[in-house]
């Protein structure tokens, strides 16, 4: 198997923002059609900014690490900025992923988007 970067391993072993949120403003659940993994993302929104974020992931080391990394990247950001974060940016922030594991980072990007969409829907702000 191809090796993970140290950063991936560090996030895998010490994932940030793991958990659930009872009073989330938006929840997004996405699945990975390639290998069947699932990620759920919870956000708390205040003044159009992601005030808090939590995730739960059922997947490989890369899936956990990218979930963890994306939560760090979007926390405190405006929704517009958070929506602009791509899976490539997440992978880059982790010093790269093995080619076979790039698809896992899609989950992270999609998870954030789904949570924001859910928030907007609930608040009648859907575009």
């Amino acid at each position, binding site marked *: 198997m191809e090796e993970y970067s140290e950063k991936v391993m560090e996030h*895998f072993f010490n*994932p940030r923002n793991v958990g*659930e949120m009872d009073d989330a403003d938006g929840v997004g659940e996405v699945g990975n059609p390639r*290998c*069947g993994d699932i990620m759920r993302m919870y956000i708390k929104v205040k003044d159009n900014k992601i005030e808090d974020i939590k995730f*739960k*992931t*059922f*997947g490989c080391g890369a899936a*956990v690490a990218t979930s963890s990394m994306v939560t760090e990247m979007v926390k405190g950001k405006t929704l517009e900025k958070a929506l602009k974060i791509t899976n490539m940016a997440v992978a880059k922030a982790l010093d790269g992923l093995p080619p076979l594991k790039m698809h896992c980072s899609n989950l992270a990007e999609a998870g954030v988007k789904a949570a924001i969409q859910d928030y907007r829907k609930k608040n009648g702000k859907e575009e």
Partner: protein
Amino acid sequence: MDKTIYLDNAATTKIDKEVIKAMLPYLTDQYGNPSSIYSLARESKKAIESSREEVAKAINAKPNEIYFTSGGTESDNWAIKGIAFANENKGKHIITTNIEHHAVLHTCKYLKKYGFEVTYLPVKENGIVDINELRKAIREDTILISVMFANNEIGSIQPIKEIGKIAKEKGIYFHTDAVQAVGKIPIDVNELNIDLLSLSGHKLHGPKSIGALYIKNGVKISNMLHGGGQERKMRAGTENVPSIVGLGKAIEIATENINEKNEKIIELRDILINGLLEKIPDTILNGDREKRLPGNVNVCFKYIEGESILLMLDMKGVCASSGSACTSGSLEPSHVLLALGLEHEIAHGSLRLTLSKYNTQKDVKYLLEILPEIVQKLRDMSPLINQN
């Protein structure tokens, strides 16, 4: 923990020191080509022949029924293609199972291009072939039945004796991929009516890239490699003398007092299986409880994923494997686990631990200490479990 605990013996095994000792002269001073006529070469020839005798003895075959190959994959390829092409005038139908190793499955798939038809027998929930399904699958034009002796992932031991009997009655050749079984459980090719059997060195504490195919005398099969006259003109190429010697020594060691040695390994296996089922809720044992290889443990922990388990085990110095889609290059879950009827999601959380003679009670105890914590940590992260 600075020590490595190796629990992936179905993947490969640690080479035995005695085996290295036996090989060493053939890597240094005894370098003669067995096909030459001077005495240096005769030493190599003698070494090969005595290794052939050891391999034959291990499965109760005759030495002239043993052909050395580069390993299990080559043996499987040779057996299946060799029988298919040499007997296609009699028929073009092959029967195998859907839990075979890829060396068998992909070879069968390849033969389809040449007009062969393949029936893949399903297995029961315990990973064992249903003999009635085999009977139903046999046709006028069936020329080969290929069923593995024991499965590499879930350790299930197949009803080889019954299959051999049926094959013999019907006059169909019977091949078994015994890569996981030789040196692990007693095998007698005569008693079991086996016509062809594949085996491999590195699964039984021998060197890698060496194996053998047993071909019963009288079986009609085409050549594997064309060239010089080695291996009775059936498999050309200068013999890998040191590895052949290593295989002979390894198989000799593995098969002596096999039942006694198994007692210890079975004891460890059962402590592990019972311990995991007891300590970790929502754990499923894959494969048959009784008819399984002495060293095989294969479980699924619900709600979590296998690669994550392996990474955490590796961190604690434990080597193991998983049938999770995320650990395979194809991103497909193990075909063996799916053949048992497991859902993708469950197959995701599979863990295989395979023991050898080098494992100890301490290893097993350590594992039972660390695994429940690892599973819990991953379950805490899983969206399939709700905290509230």
